[in-house]
């Protein structure tokens, strides 16, 4: 929809472009366009949009539910495939509300002519990933559409879980003074997908960070319970979009130290070449947490004790000033605002 502006410049000449009434790829990027789309669509269904997963019952333990669709291309990439990604994605969304996964459903949309063997491989991968997470796949659905009506294979997973004792993480619980923790290096998934796609010819050993985070979350909650205020896995839109969403949902500011954010050298180099910002590149195996300051060291130590948190580090602080904004202290000692991704960066990364 075109915004109507009272500005005389706009009044004399209609906006020349950009907005069509059609869906753009950027609407699925996890950035600002997507946030605006969800802000419009969510309320139509009465569904809130600030959390990765929803609490469906009150009382103890709470039942938590989440769903996610996967359209990644290529379907097989270093470090995972569309099947393992679909399991980990939903397990992680449940974990970000402090829930242990109980059961998953899986739905396939398959394009006519997909090699059956590929479907078998994806199904086996789903089974393997679910087993490794300790969560059963209890139901599913398969639809086949005509050639050209879908691109190979799309997978949707839905998960239910139960909240861990003492777990209260929510996007809205960030408090000034909280310490911002990051469980591992950023950008690996997005850059790996990009490098695997035809035509780029990266000769790199990058591997996606795709992995489940529910054990890491369980350890963090066991250590500090409700002092773990906020959990979020920065998938599409990257760390920048996740921090902006959390700052907005909690009405707090976030200050990040640029030299504290772990960006693997290969990710930084690929981003430089392609003009991408690592802060906007997708991750599938790390989380960001806002933790009460008196418990932060303890939580960090617990995280570092697990493989998926071995490189956990403190990257910043939650502040009362500039609510809704994320500010980075740059390498040279200046500051800048970190914004959400605008439009599309890399389509179909998950």
């Amino acid at each position: 929809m075109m915004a109507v502006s009272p500005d005389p410049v706009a009044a004399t000449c209609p906006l020349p472009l950009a907005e069509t009434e059609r869906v753009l790829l950027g609407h699925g990027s996890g950035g600002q366009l997507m946030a605006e789309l969800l802000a419009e669509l969510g309320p139509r269904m009465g569904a809130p949009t600030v959390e990765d997963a929803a609490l469906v019952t009150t009382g103890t333990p709470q039942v938590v539910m989440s769903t996610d669709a996967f359209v990644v291309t290529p379907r097989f990439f270093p470090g995972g495939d569309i099947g393992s990604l679909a399991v980990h994605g939903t397990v992680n969304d449940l974990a970000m509300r402090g829930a242990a996964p109980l059961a998953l459903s899986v739905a396939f949309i398959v394009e006519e002519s997909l090699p059956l063997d590929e479907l078998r491989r994806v199904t086996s991968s789903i089974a393997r990933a679910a087993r490794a997470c300790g969560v059963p796949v209890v139901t599913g659905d398969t639809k086949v559409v005509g050639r050209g009506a879908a691109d190979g294979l799309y997978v949707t997973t839905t998960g239910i879980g139960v909240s861990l004792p003492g777990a209260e993480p929510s996007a809205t619980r960030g408090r000034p003074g909280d310490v911002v923790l990051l469980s591992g290096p950023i950008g690996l998934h997005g850059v790996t997908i990009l490098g695997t796609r035809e035509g780029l010819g990266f000769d790199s050993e990058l591997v996606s960070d795709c992995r489940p985070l529910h054990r890491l979350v369980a350890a963090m909650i066991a250590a500090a319970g409700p002092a773990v205020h906020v959990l979020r896995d920065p998938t599409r839109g990257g760390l920048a979009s996740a921090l902006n969403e959390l700052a907005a949902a909690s009405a707090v500011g976030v200050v990040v130290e640029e030299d504290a954010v772990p960006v693997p050298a290969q990710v930084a180099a690929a981003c430089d070449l392609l003009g991408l910002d690592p802060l906007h590149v997708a991750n599938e195996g790390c989380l960001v947490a806002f933790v009460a300051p008196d418990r932060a060291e303890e939580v960090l130590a617990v995280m570092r004790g697990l493989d998926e948190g071995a490189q956990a580090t403190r990257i910043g602080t939650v502040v009362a000033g500039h609510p809704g904004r994320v500010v980075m202290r740059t390498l040279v000692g200046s500051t800048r605002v970190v914004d959400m991704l605008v439009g599309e960066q890399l389509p179909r990364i998950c």
Partner: protein
Amino acid sequence: MRYLDEYRDPVLARRLIGRIRAAATRPWSIMEVCGGQTHTIVRQGIDELLPVRMIHGPGCPVCVTPLETIDRALAIAARSEVIFTSFGDMLRVPGSTTDLLSAKARGADVRVVYSPLDAVRLAVANPGRQVVFFAVGFETTAPANAMSVLKAAAQHVPNYSILVSHVLVPPAMVAIMESASVDAFLAAGHVCAVMGWREYEPLAARYRVPIVVTGFEPLDLLEGILMAVCQLEEGRHTVENQYARAVRRTGNLPAQAAVRRVFRVSDQVWRGIGPIPASGLVLAPEFAAYDAGLRFGVAGTGAREHPGCIAGQILRGTKTPPECPAYRSLCTPRRPLGAPMVSAEGTCAAFYNAGRPAGQERS
């Protein structure tokens, strides 16, 4: 990849900032020509820490590509037989009525490639389609674009063509030296990696301005600024090379030869700035068969810029984005009124992405 750490070291950066502060006795005006440099400066907040005034130059090829050329690209992309290929940041640049990304959403076959040679490969793989590459850029992209034409000619790929909008840096610097008060220039390191810096030597002498060939990392820029400040303080005006790890005085001779073979220098209109003599490249007559403009016979469409856009003043360095009434209100990367708000190298996008507020200039 050690280069990233070496040229982004916070301790060295702060030391260089201290040396610039100690050396500068006046608020010298220094223009960084290249949009990539602008982004590093604004992203790191370097301009806010220094006692000199950084002026952001016209070095964003996407920004200076004429509106008529974008309209022409849109007309070609709309044809059903065409696969229109481009670097990603051209897709959101506004033409008169729409942009390539919106054309794609409406069904045009618009694809992002990372090299024009990929576009040639696409043409080979799709003999029944016309593959057009949008050849924009400075001297940096001209060699690869020239190579794509040479490759298409050598392999007899009849369904490949390029829509050319190439611009050259030195003539634009002359135009700025003639009209704006800039005390020193940071020349674009990657342009000089191709072209060398011999053509800058007469400019430095004639206009009595220091020109420092400079790289793109934070430490490169700080060192380049320091070298420019030292020349100004000492009353010197020569071409110096900060970017010694990548640039030689003569540049890359084979790359220059490929460009000379495929292109001819021509007058060129710069979006927002106007015509600059001998500041562009067009296909040489012997390669006219690869000219997409000729092949598809698309003419200018009476292009009109948005009246609220001050891109010309931004590109000449006479105004900064926060001084534009449309900045952050009418004009955002989502709804850009002009090209500098779009490209990864555009000054307005650099300011927007670094969260610089409207209505003030803090440098």
